[in-house]
């Protein structure tokens, strides 16, 4: 493997046994996209390759941290494709934007809900969200994005072949090398759980021990969940910041999701308890070694080495990589297993929890709402929308959600006035003017407080998609009416009776002093009258609030 430079771009080159191929990678991915720009990298990637008519086998991909353009073919084909990509980045075909956007919108990336719970609505967590921003992205947005991320300093090249193809020109604008995305964390406690499907992920220190552990875990999960799942998938994703993510997704068979969860819990508990079979570790180490050799011969290790260059790491020779993997022992794997378990985030099927297995519920709500002006819910006085100097929040029916003005990741805005604020911690506050009294004022405040760059204009909603207050149930209303009227009449009767006693005893023919029994009757009618009056008043108010 050779280190070289092509037009100022660092490159790795290694001869291969099969067909030649090459790739150009940029240090940009979904983890770099603000939520209000989610999807922009993929759009760029598709736009700049759109006009090309490549002869070789080509592909382009946006990952969490890297975006790369890959081509397999003759030196001419490689040169044509990569040079074309660079030209596209210099001069994006803006006239094709609408069509390419449609294409990109049509091919939605697979949803991965775990990162949002771990990282919030920023950095690595953004990948969990839909690409809401796509329809609103303009040529200006794309040019700005390209000039920051798709630069000579932020690129690396790999070539699997004997030489760099003659005539390969990578004409990219100058820029700066971008640091790895910060791994923001919103999970206060791990191991944690949330409800979604059946899955698990963890973030640990990257390295050969972690990679071997991921393989051991994959085999174990496959073995133990085979009868309960249609398929299981395990991924080991090293990150530039020196960590790695391990992901398990289990697609449970119908009616088996609880068992799949139980099986996964048991596998994780077993590896954490040190139940690591040394023979299994040995065979994984052996297979990993064989895989590395095979990858080397195909040039499949080169992309990883190019990623390393972008992260400021040195390239690693096959011998170094093999030596590292061979040194991994069952004890190393057991140590990683404890680290992985402790940092774990478990996804449980709907209706299931994981408190019983020792996992803490991942926070789905805010602790408090900011102080401010309260808008009560229409027909539902328990609902409250609060808007204040710090931020906005909603409470009611066990839900507490708040977003501070200064930590809003994105604002979704509908033409009907609906506004959803998504906080950096992934908590969403839904400001729906249909649901709260006088909420138009809050909508105006939200629009004034949230900067334009965080705003996403959403397409108009159908009428039935706009939330409406729950209609008050007829029976409940009837009972309230009856209560209000009965209590009111009785209260009037008692208070009137009391008054009559008072008048009688004062104006009566007696001594002029009220008699004892009169005083008692007077006090009684006053007390009961006031009690019933209050009761009727409460029922009346409730009726009033339901009508509004």
């Amino acid at each position, binding site marked *: 493997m050779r280190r070289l430079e092509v037009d100022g771009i660092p490159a790795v080159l290694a001869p291969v046994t099969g067909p030649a191929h090459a790739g150009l990678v940029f240090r940009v991915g979904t983890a770099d996209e603000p939520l209000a720009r989610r999807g922009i990298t993929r759009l760029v990637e598709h736009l700049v390759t759109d006009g090309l008519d490549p002869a070789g086998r080509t592909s382009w991909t946006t990952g969490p941290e890297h975006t790369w353009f890959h081509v397999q073919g003759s030196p001419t084909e490689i040169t044509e494709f990569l040079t074309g990509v660079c030209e596209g980045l210099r001069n994006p075909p803006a006239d094709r934007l609408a069509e390419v956007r449609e294409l990109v919108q049509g091919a939605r990336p697979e949803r991965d809900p775990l990162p949002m719970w771990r990282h919030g609505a920023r950095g690595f967590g953004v990948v969990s969200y839909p690409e809401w921003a796509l329809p609103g992205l303009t040529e200006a947005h794309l040019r700005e994005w390209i000039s920051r991320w798709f630069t000579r300093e932020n690129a690396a090249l790999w070539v699997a072949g004997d030489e760099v193809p003659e005539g390969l020109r990578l004409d990219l604008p100058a820029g700066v090398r971008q640091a790895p995305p910060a791994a923001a964390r919103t999970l206060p406690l791990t191991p944690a759980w949330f409800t979604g499907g059946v899955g698990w992920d963890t973030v640990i220190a990257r390295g050969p021990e972690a990679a071997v552990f991921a393989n051991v875990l994959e085999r174990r999960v496959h073995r133990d969940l085979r009868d309960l799942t249609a398929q299981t998938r395990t991924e080991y994703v090293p990150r530039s910041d020196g960590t790695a993510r391990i992901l398990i997704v289990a697609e449970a068979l119908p009616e088996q999701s609880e*068992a799949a969860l*139980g099986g996964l819990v048991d596998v994780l*508990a077993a590896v954490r*308890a*040190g139940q690591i079979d040394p023979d299994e570790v040995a065979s994984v180490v052996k297979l990993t070694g064989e895989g590395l050799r095979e990858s080397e011969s195909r040039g499949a290790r080169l992309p990883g080495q190019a990623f390393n260059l972008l992260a400021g790491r040195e390239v690693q020779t096959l011998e170094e990589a093999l030596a590292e993997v061979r040194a991994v022992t069952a004890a190393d794997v057991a140590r990683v297993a404890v680290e992985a378990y402790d940092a774990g985030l478990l996804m449980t099927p709907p209706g299931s929890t994981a*408190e*019983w297995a020792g996992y803490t519920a991942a926070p789905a709500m805010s602790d408090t709402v900011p102080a401010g002006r309260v808008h009560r819910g229409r027909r539902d006085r328990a609902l409250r929308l609060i808007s204040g100097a710090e931020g906005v929040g909603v409470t009611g029916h066990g839900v507490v959600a708040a977003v501070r003005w200064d930590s809003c990741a994105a604002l979704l805005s509908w033409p009907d006035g609906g506004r959803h604020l998504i906080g950096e911690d992934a908590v969403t506050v839904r400001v729906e003017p249909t649901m709260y009294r006088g909420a138009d004022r809050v909508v105006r405040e939200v629009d004034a407080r949230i900067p334009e760059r965080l705003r996403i204009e959403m397409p108009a909603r159908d009428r039935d998609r706009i939330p409406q207050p729950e209609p008050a149930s007829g029976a409940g209303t009837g009972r309230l009416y009856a209560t209000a009227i009965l209590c009111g009449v009785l209260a009037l009767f008692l208070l009137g009776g009391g008054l009559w006693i008072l008048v009688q005893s004062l104006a009566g023919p007696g001594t002029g002093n009220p008699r004892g029994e009169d005083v008692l009757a007077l006090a009684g009618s006053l007390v009961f009258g006031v009690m019933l009056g209050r009761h009727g008043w409460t029922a009346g108010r409730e009726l009033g609030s339901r009508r509004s």
Partner: protein
Amino acid sequence: MLPAMPPRQPDLDPAAAYPRITGLRDALDSGDWPACRAVLDASAPVERTELTMVPFAEPGLETFLRGVLDGDPGDGAAAALLGRHLIGTAWRVPTGARAERGAPRRPAGRTDGLVTAERLLVDAAARSPRDPAIWTARLVTARGLRLGRSEAARRYRRLAEIDPHHLPAQWQYLQQLCPEPGGDWEPAHAFARETAEAAPPGSFGPVLVAEAHLEHWNREHHRQPGAGRRYLADDRVRAGLHEAARRSVWHADFRHTHGWVRVTSTFAMAFALLDDRPAADSLFTTLGDLGSDHPWYHLGDPGAVIVKYRKRVAGGGT
């Protein structure tokens, strides 16, 4: 004429039939863990599981067992005992049999206790994946914590891989399969039938057929004696019970190992309820002075109820 059976109440204490319980209790009492292990390790798998299920109420038992586990987190016997103890504490009911019965309403404190037990058992099963006592306990927690029928089935399969004829676990799993009143009883009866058919001749397994019928009778028809009698007197039920008894308590290979009293007592109650007097009488005779709480507590105070039925089937009552 005097009735054949003595009128005095049967001895319902399991320790009367199984002396190892006393041995284990003494060892726990004196905080002698090696002695406890000696008793448990010398026991056959079913006996060992049954021993961990005895509701020992020794003061300081939890502290003692936690101490043992701190010293050796991999001690499956200590984990099983502690798990069962925590489950029993969660239910706060004195007898083992009743402690495991699913109550429709579960107070929050009970769930907390079961969660504590289950967390311990998750780790215990991870360290001792082939310990049937631990998997039996995890069937109790799966039901108590409502972890789902498929999860209970998974746990039962894990256990059946270790021991396909482990009656204590089969009984727990049968409880899981029993529906709420008005539900579908076929899964419970099917499991009982299949288990009985797969059980070796003269073993305890076929008692599950009787257990399933008694649960069915109790949950659906207990409040209507007429319907209850009709249910049990059905020809198929009667034939199924006889067949099960022939494969178990009436078989020449039936041995008086740990659990035999409850098995015999369960058949006795089933036959007593369907008024098969000779069948019930022969089983009462086998039991002699011994008896079991389960399943007689369905009918009231077990001691008194057994005396009543014993008299009746022996011809002393109506």
